[in-house]
């Protein structure tokens, strides 16, 4: 039996300048061996997220998928946190999430 109760999150990459982290999600199997169950790529933008921020974020996602997941986009959950999102960004992400069979890009508004 898998032990689903143990779900660990570990920061495996941190880019202070870009305010971006890569979190590895793992759980323990029946022999208490750690098994990776995916990643979360999270970026925080203090202001409004513009298209250039989205492009940078997509490039980072591309690199992580290549380097850590053998090209499988289903392994990484991309999360963008910003004060607000430009119309162009919203439109692209809506279409991206609809058209690409990948983990959807989650847009989270950081309302203080």
């Amino acid at each position, binding site marked *: 039996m898998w032990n689903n109760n143990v779900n660990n999150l570990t920061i495996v990459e941190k880019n202070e300048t870009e305010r971006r982290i890569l979190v590895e999600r793992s759980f323990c199997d029946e022999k208490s061996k750690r098994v990776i169950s995916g990643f979360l790529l999270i970026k925080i933008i203090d202001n409004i997220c513009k298209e250039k921020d*989205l*492009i940078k974020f*997509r*490039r980072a996602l*591309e690199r992580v998928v*290549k380097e850590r997941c*053998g*090209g*499988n*986009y289903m392994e990484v959950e991309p999360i963008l946190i910003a004060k607000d999102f430009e119309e*162009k960004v919203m*439109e*692209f992400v809506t*279409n991206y999430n*609809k*058209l*690409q*069979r*990948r983990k959807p890009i989650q847009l989270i508004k950081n309302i203080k």
Partner: protein
Amino acid sequence: MGAFLCSISERDWEITRIKGIYGNKAGTIREGSYKLFSPSTQYSIIRDLAGMKKGDLIFFHVIRKNSPSTIHGVYIVREEPFYNEDKVWKDSKERFPYRFLFEPHPKFEHLTKYDAYVEVIDLYELIEQRKIWTLATLENEVNIEARSVRKIEESREAKEIIRILYRDFNHNKLSHRVLFKPIIQKGVPIRKKIKDIGRYENAVKALLMYLLGEKDRSIIKIFGDVIDFMNEVFIAQTTRKSIDILFISGGNENNKIYTIVEVKTGKCDERSLSQVLYYMDLFKRRGIMNLEKDIIVGCLLGKDFSTRVIKYSRQRNLHRVNGRLILVQYIPNNDGNDAKFHPVII
């Protein structure tokens, strides 16, 4: 130069090999009587042959009933595909009219002189090892279109088949030399059999395969110099999903461009785009591409494109992340016997 793997029955192999003529059937026996295939199936047969050029490599898959099926070669095309109904083989009803002529490859004549072969299981091992990646199986399965002629990759796959033919030569060959008495035959060139463009998807694909074989200028202008091209390439073995047409282009061995083409008879909508995007992602995971150096391109080919498809493709290309998308429009002309291809400006 291209390479092909053609299936043939054990009964017809000897005549085929001696006369240097291969024929693909035009119909089947249904409810006790012979019936021609539907136009779509006929176009699929034409499509599979349309890209064949003089000098292309040919291997044969001989289907046997009471012993393991075998792969034979290496031959080359001496007369490009044509249509001819003259009787050549023993079948009382089927004339196998979609034909081409071939001869032993002069470089590998000693293999064909003794009809060297490998068992089909050895080819499946190459598929398992991903040394052959364009095929999933040679069997006719319920959920796969029945095909007798398959275009394979020339630079790696054909070489690998030649290698195993050499490997097993001492054990898998006839003890005597075989005859080769080439037949001379002409017919209607296969290009003339491509009609109904705009009506059948396979007709559009057949024309594109033909133009690729011809290194047609209008196609090179859109896609660049194509090194190799294949149709119905398996992208996911278990779900039996296949790419309509795949081009390989690019400067050298270490830097290739793989273009995945999805063909639609009519308008390309978001569903078609979603499909090509998914195939791009799947292809990158198959271990054929060098993820650091090679480039993937997705191409939608259709009569028209929805505004949403154009808009998303444009925005995605502007991001310059994860390959690019191209949209190619075809406009049938000459009563559906021809078409013009134009890139859509995105």
